[in-house]
């Protein structure tokens, strides 16, 4: 890698030896500049065609970037370093970057739609393009190429100063007019996108205060997954009672109905708590539910509306595991469905 870069760095100044002086003295391009042109010109033409035929908008934008940078090389080669560098700073660095900013938001897989939005658009486009082609051909065909002159005088005090004299001396009025135009455009964009704030602004502080007032979720939401067993996004976390926390699963998964069945995980925990190991069965099978479902018990208590701490009268052992768990399961799925429906509707 080092070698490659070194080679690039090193190869460059060799070009520099021949290029600049020749044009200045004779008004003819030097060999090096001609080589540079014939290398860059096909690249630029290909990139320009890429702009036309690329399927993805970002590829088209990249093609424009290639054209712009190549153009900057040519400017510099023709002893306009200021123009060349500013071309890169302003157009490539700022304008195309803004384009990319917008384009990226449409995603990598999106291709342009080829549906005509205006009827006859295509034919009008072809016609206008042909007209432009004719005009260009006419102009280029009639152009003559006299020997360049005056470059040395123009760049006598270095290129930027020469340009500054032109822009802020001779063409100062045009510059001011263009400046006004741009300011007006920027102000217009501001005015058009301005909305009056009708409601007070709700910032981070207001949101935090509202959360405290409403008394819900002061801390971040619980993360999904039961660590050491099911560290997955679709598995609801369990609260200290072993009760599954549905809201720990990301909302998107819940809306899609992709979350794992909370009851199953609750039941497994219940089996563990019921003494899957205490019974001597070192490893319990997860296929059958056997054991007092503590989590389900808690749910059933919730559903029944009595939330007091009386662990004694909860059904113990393998006495009546079925009814409460079934009840809780029903309650739970109902909850889940309601939630899902609500969110889909929203």
């Amino acid at each position, binding site marked *: 890698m080092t070698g490659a870069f070194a080679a690039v760095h090193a190869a460059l100044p*060799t070009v520099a030896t021949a290029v600049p002086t020749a044009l200045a003295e004779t008004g003819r391009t030097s060999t090096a500049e001609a080589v540079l042109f014939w290398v860059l010109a096909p690249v630029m033409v290909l990139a320009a065609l890429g702009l036309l035929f690329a399927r993805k908008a970002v590829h088209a934008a990249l093609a424009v970037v290639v054209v712009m940078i190549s153009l900057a090389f040519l400017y510099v080669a023709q002893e306009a370093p200021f123009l060349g*560098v500013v071309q890169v700073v302003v157009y490539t660095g700022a304008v195309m970057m803004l384009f*990319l900013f917008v384009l990226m938001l449409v*995603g990598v897989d999106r291709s342009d739609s080829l549906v005509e939005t205006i009827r006859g658009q295509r034919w009008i486009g072809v016609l206008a393009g042909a007209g432009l082609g004719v005009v260009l051909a006419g102009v280029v065909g009639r152009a003559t190429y006299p020997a360049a002159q005056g470059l040395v005088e123009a760049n006598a005090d*270095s290129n930027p100063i020469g340009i500054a004299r032109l822009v802020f001396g001779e063409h100062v009025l045009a510059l001011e007019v263009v400046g006004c135009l741009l300011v007006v455009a920027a102000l217009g964009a501001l005015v058009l996108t301005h909305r009056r704030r009708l409601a007070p602004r709700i910032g981070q502080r207001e949101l935090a205060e509202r959360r405290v007032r409403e008394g819900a979720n002061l801390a971040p939401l619980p993360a999904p997954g039961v660590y050491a067993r099911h560290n997955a996004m679709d598995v609801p976390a369990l609260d200290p009672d072993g009760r599954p926390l549905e809201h720990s699963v990301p909302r998107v998964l819940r809306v899609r109905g992709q979350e794992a069945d909370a009851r199953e995980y609750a039941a497994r925990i219940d089996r563990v708590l019921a003494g899957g190991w205490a019974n001597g069965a070192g490893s319990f099978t997860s296929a059958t539910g056997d054991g007092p479902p503590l989590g389900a018990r808690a749910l059933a208590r919730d559903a029944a509306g009595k939330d007091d701490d009386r662990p004694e009268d909860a059904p113990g052992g393998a006495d009546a595991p079925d009814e409460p768990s079934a009840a809780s399961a029903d309650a739970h799925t109902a909850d889940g469905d309601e939630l899902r429906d609500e969110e889909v509707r929203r």
Partner: protein
Amino acid sequence: MSRVLGVLPAAVGDGAQAGVAADFSQDVFWVWLLKAVAIIVFLLTSVLVAIWFERKVVARMQVRPGPNVHGPFGLLQSLADAMKLLVKEDVTVKAADKLVYIVAPMIAVFCSLLVYAVIPFGPEVSIFGVVTPLQLTDFPVATLYILACASVGVYGIVLGGWSSNSTYPLLGGVRSTAQVISYELAMGLSLVSVFLMAGSMSTSQIVDSQTQVWWFLPLLPAFVIYLVSMVGETNRLPFDLPEAEGELVSGYMTEYSSMKFAWFFLAEYINMLNVSAVATTLFLGGWRAPFLPADSFLQQGWWPVLWFLAKVWFFMFLFVWIRGSVLRFRYDQFMKIGWKVLIPAALVWVVAVALVQAVRRLWDVDLRTTLFVLAGLVVVGLVVSFLVPEKKPEPEAARAEPEPFDPFANGYPVPPLPGQVLPPSPRAQRRLAAGATDAGTSESPSGPETPLEVRGG
């Protein structure tokens, strides 16, 4: 991009080029080759050292040893890391846009390597009999060229984020775009005042213009703006939002592995070296040593390389220091600083500097007089501001009644706000009540009723 460098009019005619202080007319092919290779070697080894340096300094700030196993003082740690990255599996994401995905890290590294070509390391020296400035090349718009390289380098980040076809990288890429657009403006504007004072955009001439005074002193606001925006430009903490680990895994680099990731990493550290070198050259007098006369032997020959490196590493230390002590900004705060503080401040400063320069030109005042006059004005302004009586804050509307304090507002135990009094604890209340019944006098506790028992939640 690179050819911008190559076809520069490095030597017009026989003398030095117009608008450039350094004289490259003696340079021949092998001198260029030597300088170019030296720059590459310098950058790559500096990155290795910088990574070690950062880890070591941050560790010291956090009172832990840092890397100390490989080599003396852990110096070979970053070499080991680089080797590890090299031999890791190079994954190309299946859903990625292949070409752009592979090109993106190359763009980032390539552009970052270009900047040092115009940074002056020192004055003229003799290399094997050829007298040449310690600088690969220079031209009248060298500083703009640096900005151009930086702005193209960002394409690497943006395209890397986009082409990975994944959510976090895309968000990182989008953030990076917005960040660069806003912070490059502030950076460019802060540099404009240096151009105005130095009368040139060529790096050698800017260094040449700092024989009297380094620009960071008279142009302090511009220097501060540059410091802030250079941290933003290099995606370093506290402005590393494109790769915020807490939010975006690692942003635009998430889907990259092995060497492609290493290239992004390399580009980031080279960019730190780049902006440090630019700050040194434009604001800290480049390779000049402080307090020494210009004809001292320490200001000539190879010595200045030492001063230059010391200043660059001072800025590198600054980067690490900031990283070790400042928290990451929230994205909207970050944008607000860029657009509502830095850019307006930079604009106002540029106008002020332009006015002062115009006055200097008009009445032909020399720099030192101008600076003393301005400093005098600032001091007078300060003194006057001390004489102006401080505006007394409006006395707050006197609270007619101490607000009733509910220690369990909305069901939560809350502390008293200013102006509120915490009622005595339940036990104290009971004791008070007991005392009151005993004595027969009624001394009820202030404040509303509080529950006598606090049940833990």
